[in-house]
């Protein structure tokens, strides 16, 4: 682990950037429900709604990493 990374981590402000591709019918609705039920979850996730998890193109995942995502999740 580099010094720099440690420094970043030490800075409490760092929140990971998680890109979640959520199926409109499943996980997106699940996320909706989580919101409805006031269930707390990490604020670092950024949700992209897709019509189906099958819609997720490998290119999107690579692009997300390229553009600075710290993690990518596909939820269906």
């Amino acid at each position, binding site marked *: 682990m580099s010094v720099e990374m440690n420094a970043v981590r030490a800075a409490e402000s760092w929140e990971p950037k998680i890109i979640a591709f959520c199926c409109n019918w499943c996980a997106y609705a699940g996320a909706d429900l989580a919101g409805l039920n006031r269930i707390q979850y990490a604020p670092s996730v950024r949700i992209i709604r897709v019509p189906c998890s099958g819609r997720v193109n*490998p*290119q999107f995942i*690579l692009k997300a990493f390229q553009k600075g995502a710290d993690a990518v999740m596909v939820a269906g």
Partner: protein
Amino acid sequence: MKISEQIRDYAKKMLEEGEVKQFIGFEKGRLPFHSTPVFITEPGQVERLIWDDYCITNLSKYLVNFSHEDGKTALVVKGCDSRGIVRLIQDHQLQREKLVLIGIPCQGMKDSLRFFSKGDDSLLSPGGKCQSCTHPNPVLYDILIGEEVKSVNMDRFKKTEEIENLNIDERYLYWSREFARCIRCYACRNVCPACSCLSCYLDQHRVDWHGKDPAENASYLLTRAIHVAGRCIECGECARVCPTGVSVMELNKKLIKDINELFGEQDAGVDFSQTHPLCQYHTDDPDDFQ
């Protein structure tokens, strides 16, 4: 009779009788170790055809250029060429009935592209792609010249495993160095029998699509690997034609290895009955990503 002569005889006969419109084989190039694809349409030209240790190019992709034309095309096929043809037929890019295939079992060819110094071919052993060949004999042919050869039982995933055994940061380092060398000439794509798109996604001008910036090399090479996943016939042409020697094939090998592990052993472009492993769904497919 030497193989070259047999090829010429067949070519001459087919062209004279009008059975085929053209004959694709190899001819001698500018340098002694250059053998290069040739397209013969006149019976008088068949003397150009040769067969030697340098006929390494996979010819199957060329057929796509003629698929829409009337008339038959004949071509000489090694194991890898024939698998490429099977692949292209499966991808609806070729029609079998328009092809006459002259199969030649292949002992492994020498790779002139790795040769960048003065013409001493003692340095040349069968090219990298031939060393892990699993199908040296044509899997599809109409005429077979020569004796079938035995496949050299090489561990085709040796290098793949070597890379797998590196730790994660070493792997990243390895691939960054590899990807950094890519100059985006797209030779790997253009030679690949599995890259049969009419218009590659890279050639399309869309906003926020894929640029020509080498910063996107990783994205390009990984995406291409995924595009040919399950369809790669392991001819190794992509790695061979790469001018900067990026180990493109290792990405494909990794995917082949994983597909074999996950969905059962299969070789693309060998058997027409085999469907795309990633286009089927079985309830017993592994899902340990859960």
